[in-house]
């Protein structure tokens, strides 16, 4: 199996038909293959996230990450764009759904597509991955420590609500990867999500890691936990291997 790949910046049609920037990585080998939409964490469309996109291409998927802050800060550095987006109140849920739908459509339109697309998100993107899987035609979803899927957002937060009322509409199998030491989401909130998904008969698989907190996949941050991240990547490979291959 070749690990050669090509990565480039593209323009896709996001929510409302808005043209937005996205980072696309594709294996050089012939298809057909599945696709993965990567939702970046709150610090933005940064180098570490693009490394994740390329890793999915190395794993055999066409992968794309839409720049969720492109509208507020086109061309700005990721940290500056994140600061600007925050000052504007963050990414509205409805716009996120449209951007993920546009990214998934872009992947399915590739000549190498097998028609299957999954989504994965980190940090705030974890919640957004679940949100997208409640509204967009997706074949698998991964939530990496997304806060406020359950639980109550703090007063004054632009994010008005959790996703509990939307979970009955979850349209894809869900893999959840969490840290036992995380407070956002807390182990209790993860357990609540597990119970709700069980009650609605939704296919899901959760793993929570000891000695890991929030952002344990982040290789450039002190939160990085190599054992949790390595196991998590294996869980992701198996999960997408089950639902996106073919």
């Amino acid at each position: 199996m070749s690990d050669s790949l090509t990565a480039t910046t593209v323009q896709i049609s996001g929510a409302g038909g808005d043209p937005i920037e996205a980072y696309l990585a594709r294996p050089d080998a012939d298809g057909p293959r599945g696709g993965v939409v990567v939702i970046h964490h709150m610090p933005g469309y940064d180098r570490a996230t693009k490394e994740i996109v390329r890793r999915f291409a190395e794993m055999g998927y066409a992968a794309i990450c839409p720049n969720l802050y492109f509208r507020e800060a086109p061309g700005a550095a990721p940290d500056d764009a994140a600061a600007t987006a925050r000052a504007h109140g963050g990414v509205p849920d409805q716009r996120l759904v449209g951007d993920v739908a546009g990214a998934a459509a872009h992947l399915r339109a590739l000549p190498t597509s097998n028609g299957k697309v999954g989504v994965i998100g980190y940090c705030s993107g974890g919640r957004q991955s679940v949100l997208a899987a409640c509204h967009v035609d997706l074949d698998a979803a991964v939530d990496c420590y997304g806060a406020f899927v359950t639980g109550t957002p703090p007063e004054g937060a632009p994010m008005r609500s959790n996703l509990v009322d939307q979970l009955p509409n979850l349209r894809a199998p869900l893999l959840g990867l969490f840290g036992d030491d995380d407070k956002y989401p807390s182990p209790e909130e993860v357990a609540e999500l597990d119970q709700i998904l069980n009650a609605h008969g939704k296919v899901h698989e959760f793993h929570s890691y000891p000695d890991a907190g929030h952002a344990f996949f982040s290789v450039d941050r002190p939160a990085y936990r190599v054992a949790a991240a390595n196991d998590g990547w294996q869980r992701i490979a198996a999960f997408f291997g089950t639902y996106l291959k073919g």
Partner: protein
Amino acid sequence: MCTYATVHMALDGSAKGPNGEWFPLTTATVYFDHPVHAMAEHTLNIDIPDPARGPSARVALELTASSARALVAAIEEALASGP
């Protein structure tokens, strides 16, 4: 902490920003969340933008919680010593 909980405030004064250029202050955003550069899980972050020059022009601080509290105390001490 992934909440987007952010305090917005008006500021009056000046700051030295990118390319060494001074600019007049109008607003700041203050929040406790993941830093971009500081080696801490969460920091008290202050963004002071220069809206006239777009998103890439801002002064940014990421302070550990203890440093942020020490800065508040230092500011209060300095102000108390003034006329």
